[in-house]
């Protein structure tokens, strides 16, 4: 123990502010607030349309003269993942399910996909075939056809094996209108199952955790579960798949789109024990961890029980829970009622999700 004389205190000091608005950094791809800012400040000033309503899909009219969405829904999604194969899935299954799910969040039935492939020189053809076979299985499960595609090859070192972009087209059922801006106070918030499986499965598969887990990615096409859900709860207000940025980020998006408060209860949020353990060890929060086969459902209270029963009757929704409610205030905010009876803000993911130091 030191007994040295006390130092003079220098007083308030601080580094200069540093914004990442000049260069793209990894945080811009996190799906959290930095991604939103990039879209708002950089993309939308150049590429915007009245049909862009801030959802992962666009519902469109069938002719340019019309200003009424007439049942056509499109969405697009690019897929990068390392490693390409992980417990429970691979980039091919991810690429089909990602776009199928984005279309399905509008309540539409996904029908056709296109797929663009950027292949890195040196990728074994056998690995490509394995990925394509996995896409076929996922497409068959989802009941969609891949109707067109494109292939480009980049030099060794200029890609990560394979990048896949899929675009999907679906047709809307005029009876259903789920959308991010439709949550109203009084609604009930459901989640279709446990959080963080995909993120932690991919993290474990990278092999740098120093321990092994049996966590499986949840990557799955959700359209059949949604189809059954909408029959049971036709007035469902919001459907959203909490992918990058996790449940916390998706709920923040919905709270802002609908100008409401969403309050969820920590004790009710399902997380598998191995996922919780990895998160505790590394300093991650499962509420921010990516999912690829989970669904947030926001329904009027009189349809909540039917919605929950419908989710639980589907293989991908067996662990569905009611986790929260929609309130009028404070608007645009998500609150978490903690297990010990306190409450706190649940903010969007700020940038890249980073492990803690100690």
């Amino acid at each position, binding site marked *: 123990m030191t007994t040295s004389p006390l130092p003079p205190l220098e007083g308030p000091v601080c580094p200069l502010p540093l914004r990442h608005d000049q260069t793209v950094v990894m945080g811009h791809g996190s799906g959290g607030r930095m991604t939103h800012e990039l879209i708002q400040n950089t993309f939308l000033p150049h590429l915007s349309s009245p049909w862009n309503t801030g959802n992962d899909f666009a519902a469109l009219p069938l002719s340019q003269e019309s200003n009424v969405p007439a049942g056509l829904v499109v969405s697009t999604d690019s897929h990068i993942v390392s490693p390409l194969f992980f417990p429970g899935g691979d980039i091919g299954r991810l690429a089909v399910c990602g776009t199928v799910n984005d279309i399905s969040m509008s309540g539409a039935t996904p029908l056709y996909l296109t797929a663009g492939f950027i292949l890195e020189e040196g990728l074994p053809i056998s690995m490509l075939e394995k990925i394509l076979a996995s896409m076929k299985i996922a497409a068959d499960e989802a009941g969609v056809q891949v109707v067109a595609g494109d292939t480009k090859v980049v030099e060794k070192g200029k890609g990560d094996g394979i990048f896949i972009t899929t675009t999907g087209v679906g047709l809307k059922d005029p009876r259903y209108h789920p959308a991010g801006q439709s949550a109203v106070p009084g609604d009930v918030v459901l989640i279709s199952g446990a959080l963080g499986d995909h993120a932690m499965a991919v993290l474990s598969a990278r092999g740098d955790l120093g321990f092994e887990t049996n966590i499986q990615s949840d990557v799955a096409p959700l359209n059949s579960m949604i189809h059954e859900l909408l029959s049971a709860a036709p007035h469902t207000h919001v459907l959203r798949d909490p992918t990058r940025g996790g449940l916390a980020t998706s709920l923040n998006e919905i709270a802002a789109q609908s100008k409401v408060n969403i309050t969820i209860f920590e004790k009710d949020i399902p997380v598998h024990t191995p996922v919780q353990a990895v998160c505790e060890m590394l300093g991650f929060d499962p509420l921010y961890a990516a999912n690829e086969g989970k669904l947030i459902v926001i329904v009027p209270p009189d349809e909540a029980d039917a919605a929950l029963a419908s989710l639980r009757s589907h293989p991908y929704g067996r662990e569905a829970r009611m986790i929260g409610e929609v309130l009028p205030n404070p608007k645009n905010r998500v609150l978490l009622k903690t*297990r010990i009876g306190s409450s706190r803000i649940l903010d969007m993911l700020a940038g890249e999700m980073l*492990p803690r130091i100690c």
Partner: protein
Amino acid sequence: MSDGFPLADGYRDPTLVATLLAQLHVSVTHPWVIMEICGGQTHAIMQSGLDQLLPPQIELVHGPGCPVCVTPLELIDKALDIASRPEVIFCSFGDMLRVPGSSRDLFSVRASGGQVRVVYSPLDAVRLAQQNPDKQIVFFAIGFETTAPANAASVLQAEALGLTNYSILVSHVRVPPAMHAILGSPQSRVQGFLAAGHVCAVMGYWEYPPIAEKYHVPIVVTGFEPVDLLRGILMTVKQLEAGTSEVENAYPRLVTREGNPAAQALIQRVFEPCDRSWRGIGNIPGSGWKLNHAYAQYDAENKFDVASIQTRESEICIAGDILQGLKKPLDCQAFGRQCTPQNPLGAPMVSSEGACSAYFRFHNPMEISQ
């Protein structure tokens, strides 16, 4: 959470929390200012919302125990310089990537082609050194007594493997000198300490009785779950109410008086005490560790010519006052307006353990929206 986490569930039990809170309400009769020294505790308090359940007489102030927050700008600038070199793979714990240096951060270095890797352990960096003999692997060895043993072990492992391409940029700091600095400041308001449980798991708490005696403050070794924290607070309050200033251990399932002798031996073999500048606080004599003479060849500051890099911080925010517990994040004009986690003005907003970040992410929304 529904499946639970068996290792911690008992320490998050709402019934136990309620019982301890009731005891606390009965015990407290005067207003008391208690500092939790560790950023991990600040984070845990905010994450569970424990601060809002405490009796109003108890004010928790947040200490300097966030390693990201107190790493001096000069060392961050040195890290950025080293990480930018083409022959280097720079390895760091994740949080450190976001901390701004004078003009950029490690994210920016990575975006402009620097090889910056997030690792979970310094031993991962040693493995990289084995796999990349033509590269220099540099690990950013920051943190308190908790991370020092593993960082020391990485140097010993590199030595055992005969690696000449591994070095560490050391910014280790020690808790007891910081407690002296805080309590010795004429502005100090701190009346009791929650000592950092994980630091004590390594170092024990034999260093604390002279501090408790000299400044007449109770010091209670405290853990990180809600029940642990409440137990620590309750023991501190009971001492404050009784007018005693003892060192007590509220975290006996992990901490002994002597700590972990094997870990301490690793530290002593590789490091020696040095003066260390703390971001926001200033130079504290004897408050750091650096590599000793025998291991100087593993010191990245020696290996790379960065001695000429000297920086001084500009005076914008009140990070220094926050790290010393003189002010709260909500006292800052910039908080939540110009200064947010994705646009941090000060280090406490950067790290997930930083007090400002914890406030921003978790605090009562009514207070923030004002």
